[in-house]
């Protein structure tokens, strides 16, 4: 089963976040709790954790991209 990972709304007034680091690449195994990517907003850089075990199938953005809230960043194949 596939699951999409979107840009989370990290605060009430957040409209987009800067993707400052991609910690997993397409094809990488992922465990629940692994950091998938880092997002910089006004106050801090947030390490976004995976809620699933699986494999990262597709990445739709690259480091340095500004991504709107709810836009799809990655797709994971859940195991």
């Amino acid at each position, binding site marked *: 089963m596939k699951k999409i990972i979107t840009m*989370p709304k990290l605060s*009430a007034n957040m409209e987009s976040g800067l993707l400052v680091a991609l910690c997993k690449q397409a094809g990488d195994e992922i465990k629940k709790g692994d950091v998938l990517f880092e*997002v910089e907003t*006004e106050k801090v*850089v*947030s*390490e976004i*954790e995976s809620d699933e075990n699986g494999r990262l199938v597709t990445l739709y953005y690259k480091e340095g991209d500004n991504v709107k809230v709810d836009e799809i960043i990655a797709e994971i194949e859940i195991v």
Partner: protein
Amino acid sequence: MGRKLPEWLKVNYNKEAVDEVSHMMADLKLNTVCKEANCPNLGECYKKKTATFMILGSVCTRNCRFCNVSNGHATKVDPEEPMNLAQAVKKLNLTHVVITSVTRDDLPDGGAAHFAKTIEAVRNINPETTIEVLIPDLRGVHENLDIVINANPNVINHNVETVKYLYADVRPQADYERSLKVLQYIKEKAPHITSKTGIMVGLGETDEQVYEVMDDCLKVNCDIFTIGQYLRPSEQHIELKEYVTPEKFEEYKKVALEKGFKYVASGPLVRSSYKAGEATSIFK
């Protein structure tokens, strides 16, 4: 576009954990300062199933220039809030709870009686939980402060927020001396209650001004002092002048302890309620 924040301002975020706590708060019609103030530690605290509750609504009657909480006409006080909050404390199995509020200059007692009712409700169904309240200045009125003191929380925190010289810019509707007098009155009236205060740095204050705040707070026998980095919620808020380094925070901590505080939390992401239970446990 590249990074603009220093590498030490990094936090963890787990959506599942955040959603779980957020839904519970919404179901019980409760506000948290974590969400309303856009706290950088929300992800970490919610993951640990802890939060700082914000009572008396989500609209503040003051407009401090550092704060993300909405200001304007305050909402009606919810009489169910004390019991709902007490139930949330039970559901989260909190050993220590921090309760704060918006400032309610529109209420005759500033919301003091609602604080007292909330403390009582929490204690009734969570007798083992230590209770910390982070109060506004209640206009410095002794009768208002007495209501909170008589409810006998374990800790009363009132933040001075910044150095004296920046009050006009940062807290235009507050008064440095009044905040010190609030801390003084709490300790004089109830020496057994732990008193606590804190400041933000990065607003352009000097080391000497920071040390002066420490001295002023010690003169009124304050027990706990917290120091954290001011983080600008938006471009509409007061400008951030400097990212203070972790090493400087360590230096502030060392000086504060040498000066005589019983407990000091100092770090870029320290907030007055961050890991508050750890500080309180040493006073048990």
